[in-house]
């Protein structure tokens, strides 16, 4: 497979993941804002936009955080290079560039998805429409993953795509957790105190983990339990441990297919093994923020190593 194609697949799926994560965060923000008074709703939107890393751009353009402005900024603002519309365009552009390496089912799902999203975001999104738009976008992601799983040849391309998915997902979950943790907990001494259950609910919703968590924890929602769930629970498909376990699977397969152990597979094996052994106490002993910062750094190193190992660029 061409290095450029591997690169295209990797980034196509990173961006697809980013589209979905953005939609999830937005969904959580919407739910929270609906149940708030104006002032707290403003805080919700501030936190959603901060988690996306779009705070500076938003504040330069708008002084205050109102719902309509916030979701339109996230979804379709031309001044926001990371708006969902631009992300989805990138997914589609990458898909076109690697057209010969993806199944036609997947291509059609992405192309149709892009057409739907492009149409829905061609004009400002109103309050009454935003819920449906977000639902539709999430559906586009689900459909693309379905087509991917059902129709892609299980060769190197499949694993480059999965590597992109899980690198991005690990980063996203860590980032959401880090951001929320700061917003929610002014200091580590707050861990375990009774906190605003609604905010934790938002955190879980933004990773589509609310139902899973409730099911596993019979209704309890404490900070420590949620943090453990998102970092260490191998059963939850957006946890750090799960993401790196699947990333390890794909990178070791790639190394085997290429007949050489690359730096990337070494790094991910270390990370996944470390997460296997880790306890939540150790995380808090290190400091959650410090732990997450370290994790994101290592995750980024793995991504760089993949590009090196497989000659993504020259």
């Amino acid at each position, binding site marked *: 497979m061409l290095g450029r194609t591997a690169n295209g697949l990797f980034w196509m799926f990173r961006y697809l993941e980013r589209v979905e994560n953005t939609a999830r965060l937005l969904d959580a923000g919407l739910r929270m804002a609906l149940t708030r008074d104006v002032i707290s709703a403003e805080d919700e939107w501030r936190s959603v936009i901060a988690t996306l890393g779009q705070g500076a751009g938003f504040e330069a353009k708008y002084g205050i955080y109102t719902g309509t402005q916030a979701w339109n900024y996230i979804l379709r603002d031309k001044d926001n290079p990371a708006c969902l519309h631009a992300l989805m365009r990138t997914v589609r552009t990458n898909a076109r560039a690697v057209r010969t390496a993806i199944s036609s089912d997947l291509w059609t799902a992405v*192309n149709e998805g892009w057409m739907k999203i492009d149409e829905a975001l061609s004009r400002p999104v109103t309050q009454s429409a935003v819920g449906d738009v977000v639902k539709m976008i999430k559906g586009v992601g689900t459909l693309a993953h379905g087509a991917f799983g059902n129709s892609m040849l299980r060769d*190197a391309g499949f694993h480059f795509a999965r590597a992109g998915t899980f690198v991005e997902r690990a980063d996203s979950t860590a980032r959401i957790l880090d951001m929320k943790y700061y917003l929610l907990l002014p200091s580590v001494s707050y861990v375990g105190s009774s906190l605003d259950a609604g905010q934790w609910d938002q955190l879980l919703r933004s990773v589509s983990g609310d139902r899973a968590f409730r099911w596993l924890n019979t209704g309890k929602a404490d900070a420590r339990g949620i943090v453990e769930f998102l970092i260490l629970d191998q059963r939850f498909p957006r946890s750090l441990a799960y993401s790196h376990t699947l990333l390890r699977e794909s990178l070791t397969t790639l190394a085997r297919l290429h007949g050489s152990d690359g730096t990337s597979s070494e790094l991910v094996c270390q990370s996944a093994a470390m997460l296997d052994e880790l306890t939540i106490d150790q995380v808090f002993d290190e400091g959650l923020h410090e732990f997450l910062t370290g994790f994101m750094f290592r995750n980024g190193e793995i991504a760089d190593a993949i590009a090196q190992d497989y000659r993504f660029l020259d």
Partner: protein
Amino acid sequence: MSGAADTFDEMHDPSGAVRAGYAEYCRWFDEQPADLLKRKDQEAEASFRRTGITFNVYGEHDAEERLIPFDMVPRIITANEWRRLTRGIEQRVSALNAFIHDLYHRQEIIRAGRLPERLLANNDAWLSNMVGFTPPGGVYTHIVGIDLVRTGPNDFFVLEDNARTPSGVSYMLENRETMMTMFPELFTRVPVSTVSDYPRRLARSLAACAPSATTGKPTVAVLTPGIYNSAYYEHAFLADQMGAELVESGDLRVVGGRVCMRTTRGFEPIDVLYRRVDDDFLDPLSFNPDSMLGVPGIMDVYRSGGITIANAPGTGIADDKAIYSFMPEIVEFYTGEKPLLPNVETYRCADRETLKYVLDNLEELVVKEVHGSGGYGMLIGPTASKKEIRTFRAKLEANPQNYIAQPTLALSTCPVFTRKGLAPRHVDLRPFVLVSPDNVEIVPGGLTRVALKKGSLVVNSSQGGGTKDTWVLKD
């Protein structure tokens, strides 16, 4: 239903009766409820959009990818007609290949006084690097598109030879796919020859031209300028269908005397490169030094037998419009036979007498730039305004050797589906020809382009033309 009195109607004879080839189709058509066909028409467009069968238009940001309109009434060619066409095309393509070889070697045709030397002297498509070099298998034009127009029952004319990089074959294939999906029952009622094995034939034909450096099964790759090129869809489609790599300039590098692609395992040699970039951009070391689309050093590898480039660089010498006017002589010179497919009568404006005739009759002629393509830079006398004619007259007088002129032909018509029912529109036909060292083959079909405006003779997609599925009937 019928067009102007002097226009050949593909579906009906002058008495209004349906021609034999269309009989079964028309029976089927008459059975269909009008509503259903209208709905199918919309479905077809949606399906093309979903599949992403688009072409890009330069310089129009918002409409960066466009659909070529698809018309769901097929153009039907009988087995007999096709046999005659095939023989004519094979003859012409063999002559083209021999002609290019001769030009880059002994130039017998010029020595014999059958072709003026000046046609080569100032020709941009001439590549001096090709002089004295014979490409692997002796093939120059691996893939050729011959544009044909029809004016009567037995009157097919060659309008243009596309010998460098003919495009449109993906539409031939997708149009058929779409028709088979929409109207499967039609294909059980009408015996239509299949076109779907074109990519397999293309792959085989290209592999048969592998260079001497090839070891084992030849590696074939398609070279595209990238996703913003107008024909990117086709490049990706063909690579996909052939199971070949789709490469861009950035993927390629000359390593150890071979042209190699950067794969996740390192650099791997390519044996046959089906390139969809122009000569000028192929090798910045040999041609345009600013080119970002080519491979530095590929011409050296080529000349040392390390790679096959399809079509061969320098092939374009055979398909400019000044050369076209000599095709009857060329065919005769290399095959020793009379051409089976005539040219459209062509006036060479470089000739003073002829120029005078052309200037006096601009209102009735089509004038084309010798190197132009895609319907740009041409004048269609009968439909042009006085002002357009004035402007063109000035251009023609300033640079006569840059133009040829042809009489306006009464292009045949084929019905298209409109909201008000069937209506005749002018069509042309581009069959696709594959050339390998010992074989010339033509898939039974081709791309029918259709002018969508009533009365218009312009069928180019870049000028708003559409396409139709083309059926060659089995005996």
